């Protein structure tokens, strides 16, 4: 469904991604794990069109999207929950969600999507009139995911959804990701919380300084000695 071939992306003068090949199949949950600065976020930003690769090709459903503009990529069905959630702090919860549906025209669809998001995260419904910036970290993460779902994506890119959250909320977020995937949305997940991510994912890639060093199924990577040592703390 999504394929990255030989992607090199520079972040300023630094080559953050040095020739990555990744594939995500329809309906899969695939995770990218790796330490800080391994190039995980850069990879997601390249897929979303925010960063342009110096060379290589990104294709989605067989179509080359390497040079498609970010807002059109959303229109094609790829939605991202970026690192740090990036809630619009001075828009209300409701307005944040409406912005998520910006590429969708038609009020009917907007309503059903809103209902779905409020069903997934009832707390957002209670706080719909509150400013995004006043929510707690966990609520902001829920809002970020809800906002990304508002456009009815075929594929969801999640960048460190568990970062800085209490364990109980992390559990809830991971359950929701599973639910979203069960509903037919393909997921590409970037995580530092490698254990939880690999358990959830069908397949995974390990990134080290801009390159894919190991790949395999979630189970394989959980059992891999190197992965255990470097990322699972065993």
């Amino acid at each position, binding site marked *: 469904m999504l394929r990255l071939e030989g992607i090199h992306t520079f972040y300023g003068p630094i080559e953050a991604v040095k020739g990555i090949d990744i594939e995500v199949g329809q309906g899969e949950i695939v995770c990218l794990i790796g330490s800080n600065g391994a190039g995980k976020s850069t990879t997601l930003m390249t897929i*979303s069109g925010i960063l342009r690769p110096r060379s290589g090709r990104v294709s989605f459903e067989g179509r080359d999207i390497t040079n498609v503009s970010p807002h059109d990529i959303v229109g094609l069905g790829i*939605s991202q929950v970026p690192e740090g959630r*990036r809630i*619009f702090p*001075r*828009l209300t919860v409701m*307005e944040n969600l409406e912005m998520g549906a*910006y590429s969708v025209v038609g009020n009917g669809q907007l309503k059903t999507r809103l209902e779905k998001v409020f069903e997934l995260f009832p707390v957002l419904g209670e706080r719909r009139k509150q400013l995004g910036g006043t929510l707690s970290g966990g609520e902001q993460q829920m809002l970020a995911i809800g906002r990304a779902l508002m456009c009815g994506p075929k594929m969801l890119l999640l960048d460190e959804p568990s970062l800085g959250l209490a364990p109980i909320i992390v559990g809830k977020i991971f359950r929701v990701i599973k639910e979203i995937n069960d509903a037919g949305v393909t997921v590409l997940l970037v995580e530092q919380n490698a254990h939880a991510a690999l358990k959830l994912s069908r397949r995974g890639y390990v990134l080290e300084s801009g390159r894919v060093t190991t790949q395999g199924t979630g189970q394989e990577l959980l059992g891999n000695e190197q992965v255990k040592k470097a990322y699972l703390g065993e």
Partner: protein
Amino acid sequence: MLFQQIINGLTVGGVYALIALGYTMVYGILELINFAHGEIYMLGAYLGIILFGFFTSVGLTSHSLALSFALTIALSVLFCSAYGFTVERIAYKPLRNAPRLSPLISAIGVSIFLQNYVMLTQGATDKVFPDLLGSAGFDLLGARITYLQVLIIGVSFLLMLALHLYVTKTRMGKAMRAVAQDKVMASLVGINVDSVISVTFIIGSGLAAVAGIMVAMYYGLVNYFIGYIAGIKAFTAAVLGGIGSIPGAMFGGIFLGLIESLGASYISSEYKDAYAFAVLIVILLIRPAGIFGKSTEEKV
């Protein structure tokens, strides 16, 4: 006396507010002080004179004053919006990823270019706007209020209300606020950031055009240099209210108009232009982000 000065202050303040909105909206989105904005206002004033003169020469004015006035405003807004749009495309958009100083210098360049362009094509002497309403008006609470003042105050406040409704209720207005808060995230939700920026310039320039015509009518005189001082004052108003904040620009403009008018009559009219800056200094000492300015906080 006091009421008279308040009315005078509101008239000038409404105009300042309209210009200040253009500064603050562009700053909110691009963090760019659009120094060419005052020139758009000046162009609006000139276009007012030219268009109105044209309608007079073809006999429309004597047929229907209201219609020719409405057409003058509409066409002037259209032209100025086109100017604002074009300036952004030519002078700012290519510098979107350049260091912050570059678009600022580009803005100063556009400002100098437009001033000289108007000076060369329209001459360096004052142009006169026809005195339409004269000093016709009415007396209220001991103050003399002209119909022109009523018109200027009414139009300014209506436009401010319209803008407020636009940014809070419409899809594009909300997108403008989203872009101002986080451009990358805005494109990640599917907003075309470039077209939102264009719309911002179009709206800001349109408001400046209306302000230009109204000032031309109020003072009766226009020259190629009026954009400079009005631009500086409106910019002061925007900073006073908190640059980037739309209610701030509205408040700042009206506040500045009142200060000027009251200062001129109760202290000394010699220093009329200085009051604005004195107040700016005091307010920035107390509240560096301006009255409505927000210090952003991040939550983890």
